[in-house]
């Protein structure tokens, strides 16, 4: 297979689309939104509506209650009735979580190729790049909270359910390597349906690659905080996401290895509602704590400080 040709093709499709510019604008929006240094989540109301559409009311998949779009985004895309923490885009996550203007992105233009010549994969990823304004299912870079710098990765379920292929695996690996070289903590928001089937066996290897990078980083004494959001499943749950020194989950989100339908098919019975919820994982000992979205900045700041990052001086 002529990878160069394929690469050329993708490049061709990639450039004329609006994705690159959309991306720039969005990154600017990240820089331009948030308020002063505060423990409160930043400026959700100002965030572009990349997470829930513009005016579409939110119908909670857990409690079935409907919330008007405005009230929903004001509430950080958390269901006001049952506290389900809905999926949000990586850009919105950065807007509400890191200090204003501090996100500096790594590997901005890294895109998927089609290593096993999977039918329709190039078209699908090109369309998603244009639609989401991001180059694949994760954004990585450096950022800070209360001026405490760290390396951050945020997965985006809008992009092929944030499945892990070569780009996600490579970006996470580079992020761990950068964090190790620069003595920075690593904060990773996971969300994923698992390995990216369209990249075949190469996607499976990303589980080994990212876990090996996490192991090296850990051996070097690095602090890895893994934050599980909706959904963290399959090959991502079975690799780096489960390897945090501290594992935090958002309330009620789905966390598990096998898909619900697969298990139901195997055992021929209906599974309880809370099966594979964050609370189920906490109960069974696989999550350290459940933290609400609105308390995430504060919690992270405290954990970073307890590990010697940030000290008492605030240069803000």
């Amino acid at each position, binding site marked *: 297979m002529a990878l160069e040709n394929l690469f050329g093709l993708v490049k061709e499709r990639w450039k004329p689309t609006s994705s690159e510019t959309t991306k720039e604008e969005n990154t600017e929006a990240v820089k331009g939104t948030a308020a002063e240094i505060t423990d409160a989540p930043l400026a959700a109301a100002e965030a572009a509506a990349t997470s829930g559409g513009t005016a579409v009311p939110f119908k909670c998949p857990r409690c079935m209650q409907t919330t008007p779009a405005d009230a929903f985004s004001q509430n950080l895309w958390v269901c006001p009735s049952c506290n389900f923490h809905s999926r949000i885009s990586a850009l919105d996550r950065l807007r509400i979580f890191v200090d204003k203007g501090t996100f500096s992105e790594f590997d901005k233009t890294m895109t998927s190729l089609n290593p096993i010549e999977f039918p329709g994969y190039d078209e699908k990823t090109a369309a998603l790049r244009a639609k989401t304004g991001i180059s694949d299912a994760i954004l990585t870079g450096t950022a800070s909270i209360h001026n405490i710098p760290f390396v951050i990765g945020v997965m985006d379920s809008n992009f092929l359910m944030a499945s892990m292929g070569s780009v996600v695996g490579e970006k996470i690996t580079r992020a761990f390597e950068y964090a190790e070289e620069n003595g920075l903590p690593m904060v990773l928001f996971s969300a994923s349906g698992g390995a990216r*089937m369209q990249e075949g066996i190469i*996607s499976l290897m990303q*589980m080994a690659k990212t876990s090996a990078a996490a192991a090296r980083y850990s051996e070097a004494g690095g602090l890895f905080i893994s934050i599980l959001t909706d959904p963290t499943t399959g090959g991502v749950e*079975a690799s780096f996401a489960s*390897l945090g020194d501290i594992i935090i989950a958002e309330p009620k989100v789905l966390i598990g*290895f096998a898909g619900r339908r697969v298990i139901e098919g195997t055992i021929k019975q209906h599974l309880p509602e809370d*099966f594979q919820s964050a609370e189920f994982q906490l109960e069974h000992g696989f999550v350290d704590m459940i933290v609400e979205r609105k308390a995430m900045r504060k919690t992270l700041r405290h954990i970073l400080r307890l590990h010697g990052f940030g000290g008492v001086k605030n240069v803000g």
Partner: protein
Amino acid sequence: MSAKSAWDCLQIIRNKNRPTVENYIPLIFDEFYELHGDRHFGDDHAIKGGIASFEGKPVTVLAQVKGRNLNENKNTNFAMPHPEGYRKAMRLALQAEKFKRPIICFIDTPGAFCGIDAEKRGQGEAIAQSLFLFSKLKTPVISVILGEGGSGGALALAVCDRLAMLENAVYSVISPRGAASILWKDAAKEKDAAEVLKITAPDCKSFGIIENIISEPIGGAHNSPTDTAENIKAYISNSIRDVTKLNTEELLKARYHKFRKIGVYGE
């Protein structure tokens, strides 16, 4: 070796007489002693572990065990491990590191078991910890895929210094059946999915996922388990000789880069 389709390979490895690791262990090793249990929950029969002598030198053996009949398959859960199986493997891997003996892994699983208890006991965590541990284990690890290399459940024993597949074995991120039901909402189209996924030994070699392909007798391993065992033995012998030339630091560096370099992307 002639190029077979993925579907041809699947037919051969599904042959009811295909040898399992139970056939190979006595043909490859002397003095095999099985060691049981993860010391926390139980003893998973889907993964067998033990110590043995290989060409006169001590090794640790870790193996996924397919049954050769229904009773054996009930006992080994069709080679689909639970978390305690991976935790037993990790316990024995650390023991091998302590006593400085190489680890030989035999992979043959449709995948890690998908069930309520497996989830309650942390199937994902057990696999993640295996990948984490094996990536930095200070002793050589040599792995062979005997038949089915099914997804993360197989990968947990494939983070190694040398990986080979038997000629007709397959290695895949998702079962062809699973892929067919996702792609075309029709599990019956597994034959098409098998070809699309590129799961054969020559495919995996061309992607740089494995180092070696081990020949099987014409028609498949079931036609001569003894000859197949000889070929596996030669591969293990050569691999051990190669990797023991490296000191621990070189070994770990090479293992990291073996996986580090896998990925296809544009920048």
